[in-house]
């Protein structure tokens, strides 16, 4: 029997998922990227520039923090990978740093991005400021209103934030608008997509830039526990970039169990959920064949989650494959469970997690681990951006 590969194949697929289902107008852009990305990523000069920025600008390596009180309470050795300590407050910048240096090498002068919660938008605006590049961020009109602080950050950073008025005026529509911009500006513009979604080679590209997370963990865990391999690795999944990054170097180590946590919103079967692996069917979204939440007629449905970063109606094709092959166990967590986990981590460890991240933290209430199990959770981002939601929810 042939060993399953969890990496993308030369055609751009993970099993049956992936590909590049794009209109011809995008073909030259995506093809240019596809033909060049591996060459550039393997260039030592490129690696040096990216690694320097990750170290001196982003603040990598991020700590692997042993959460003592949390471990005591839940009866396992719980480590938190502190992506919240990255510059701008989440793992998103690992990808934007890589992509901006790539865009420079491709001779691009103008950067576009989509954003939901604003975290990827801020990370993109940040690297554009750093490199002196023009930056346009598309953001749903509704998200602009409910994520005002991140909008202000982007403006402080010199980016232009353009409201997406179409559809439900949230992340999905912002992505559509970004793609439309790219169609209209095929030559000078690079589109920095914010998760392991979109047409090949984006899922692979973003996963590679995020893989620094698990690369560091191997070393850090070796120092802390004498082994590179935890028993479990846990991450939340919106599009799936932080999960891709923390799973990456463990995909082929089958004794490391991987857990992905999706947003169940008000309950998987409530009609207000974003648990794509549970509710989605194979389909096409934003250029990629993957699991998609959709109507029987193939119209993409609006997902729901209290967390702006998880309410995406798809998951990256890599995750669809990991789900299908059962390499990764997919769990889901409701709004309420996530919010309670968020405040519990704050009170017990002094770390206010992003609500996205709080979904990953929430599994400890339900899942039982053994006392000696080493469980590494991706603390993908800090909760400052979510204070208003926390305040309202808990009436603080």
């Amino acid at each position, binding site marked *: 029997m042939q060993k399953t590969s969890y990496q993308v194949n030369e055609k751009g697929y993970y099993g049956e998922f992936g*590909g*590049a*289902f*794009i*209109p*011809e*107008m995008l*073909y*030259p852009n995506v093809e240019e990227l596809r033909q060049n990305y591996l060459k550039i990523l393997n260039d030592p000069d490129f690696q040096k520039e990216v690694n320097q920025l990750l170290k001196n600008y982003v603040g990598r390596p991020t700590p692997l923090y042993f959460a003592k009180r949390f471990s005591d309470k839940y009866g396992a050795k719980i480590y938190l990978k502190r992506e919240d300590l990255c510059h701008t407050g989440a793992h998103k910048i690992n990808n934007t740093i890589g992509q901006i240096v790539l865009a420079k090498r491709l001779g691009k002068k103008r950067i576009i991005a989509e954003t939901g919660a604003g975290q990827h938008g801020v990370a993109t605006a940040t690297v554009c400021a750093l490199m002196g590049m023009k930056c346009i961020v598309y953001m749903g009109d509704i998200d602009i209103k409910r994520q005002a602080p991140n909008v202000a950050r982007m403006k402080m950073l010199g980016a232009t934030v353009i409201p997406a008025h*179409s*559809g439900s005026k949230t992340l*999905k*529509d912002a992505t*559509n608008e970004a*793609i*439309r911009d790219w*169609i*209209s*500006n*095929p*030559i000078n513009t690079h589109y920095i997509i914010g998760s392991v979604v979109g047409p090949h080679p984006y899922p692979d590209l973003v996963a590679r830039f995020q893989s620094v997370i698990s690369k560091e963990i191997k070393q850090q865990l070796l120092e802390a526990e004498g082994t590179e391999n935890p028993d479990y690795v846990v991450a939340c999944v919106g599009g799936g970039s932080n999960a891709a990054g923390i799973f990456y170097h463990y995909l082929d180590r089958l004794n490391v169990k991987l857990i992905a946590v999706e947003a169940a919103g008000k309950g998987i079967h409530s009609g207000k959920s974003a648990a794509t692996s549970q509710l989605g*069917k*194979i*389909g*096409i*979204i*934003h*250029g990629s064949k993957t699991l*998609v939440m*959709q109507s*029987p*007629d*193939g*119209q*993409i*449905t609006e997902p729901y989650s209290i967390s702006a970063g998880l309410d995406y109606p798809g998951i990256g094709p890599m995750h669809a494959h990991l789900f299908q092959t059962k390499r990764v166990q997919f769990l889901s967590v409701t709004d309420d469970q996530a919010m309670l986990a968020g405040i519990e981590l704050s009170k017990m460890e002094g770390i206010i997690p992003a609500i996205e991240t709080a979904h990953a933290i929430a599994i400890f209430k339900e899942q039982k681990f053994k006392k000696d199990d080493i469980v590494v959770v991706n603390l993908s981002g800090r909760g400052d951006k979510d204070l208003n939601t926390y305040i309202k929810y808990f009436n603080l």
Partner: protein
Amino acid sequence: MNRIQKKLEEKKKLLSIYFTAGYPTTQDTIPILMALEKSGVDLIEIGLPFSDPLADGTTIQESAATALKNGMATEVIFNQLKDVRKKITVPLLLMGYFNPILQFGVENFCQKCYETGIDGLIIPDLPIQVYEEFYKNTFEKNGLIPIFLITPQTDNERINRIDSISDGFIYMVSNNGTTGAKKTFEKEQSEYFKRIFAMKLKHPQIVGFGISNKDTFYQATKFTSGAIIGSAFIQMLSRDGLGGIDAFIKSIR
């Protein structure tokens, strides 16, 4: 020989009209088709509304959103079109994004097209490699002509490849951008038209995106076989309703 191919043999500048099925109301599909044939258009593209039409500009986006709200769906379209060939003879194309077709089942979809009398399909987000590898046979079996796009950025090698797998016409996207009506074309557009003309492709080209009136139609068809009007037609429908169709078509040529 397919109705599209036959039409392409007529030595005239073809006028093709795009409209979104289900807009302005669900009941309008057949009346619009009949009015278009009556006023003399050469080809008709029936748009299948999609929630996320990422190659389309605001006009078509909004018409699709309205159509979906009106309850338009793939099943509904085929029901409405069941007897269309008893009513009109103009070549018909369906234009739709890939996901709804995938959910309907590509095989099933193509067979329904065949039964209905549809002549061709435009699926902008179906890449040509995927088409060739998986769906070519199905299209051919059902007598469906695949229409592929080229843009000002498409390089010659790829244009030749597209020409080689085409069977009807090549959908020539006029400019860098999504669908949407334009008042006039720039110099770079006509150079692009000329450049393609000079390639002497096997298949005729019909220009789409940005054609809105006599002027742009004239410019677009100077070096090509025809042009497609979408957004401008939909805007007219919003303004004047179905009663405006004849005058609109007459104003173009």
